[in-house]
């Protein structure tokens, strides 16, 4: 989930992509960690990670996913 780790399906809005239905089960599970699958403590990963804006060059107001998992643009 660090920007340098983009995963096999790339990033969108600074979040790694899960890929389609043919993705390996292992990779899907990795992505589901974000939603807290199987841990029993809610979305522990998302709750403990924050995007900190420095110079703003990799931050995109409309297309990044902020709260609620969807970008602000329609």
């Amino acid at each position: 989930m660090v920007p340098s780790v983009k995963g096999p399906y790339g990033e969108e809005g600074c979040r790694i992509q899960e890929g389609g239905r043919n993705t390996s089960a292992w990779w899907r599970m990795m992505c589901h960690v974000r939603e807290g699958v199987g841990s029993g403590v809610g979305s522990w990963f998302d709750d403990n990670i924050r995007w900190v804006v420095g110079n703003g060059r990799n931050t995109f107001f409309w297309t990044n996913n902020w709260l609620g998992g969807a970008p602000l643009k329609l």
Partner: protein
Amino acid sequence: MGGRRKCLGWRRRLLAWEKDSVRECPALLNNVILQDNIQDYWRWLLDPIHDYSVCETYCFLTSVDEPVADGENNNVWHKLVPSKVSLFAWRLLQDRIPTRSNLVMRHVLQPNDNFVLEGVVSSRRRIISSLVVI
């Protein structure tokens, strides 16, 4: 933040709650001060200085998880208790019953699915509270 400043207008008249959001938005963004010499980055709140580590995260997850007392485990596997009852109790303590919340968490159901599934309970808490009644 990304892109050039443009003169923007609204395509339609805003609803009352949308106007509130428009007012609230600049207030939220006021705290953001761009610093040219610092790159944007992810901060791991559990350890902002050393950053993410598997070890620290493991400690966090294992300490937060609801601890199941040893006594409870021993009672579950008592030889006088029928195995199907033991199995149910064990799955309940591990929160491995296919309740609605578990099915949503494992992406079998969508959170907004409203249909009623026969025999599917909403959550482990519901089962435990009904057991108390029995």
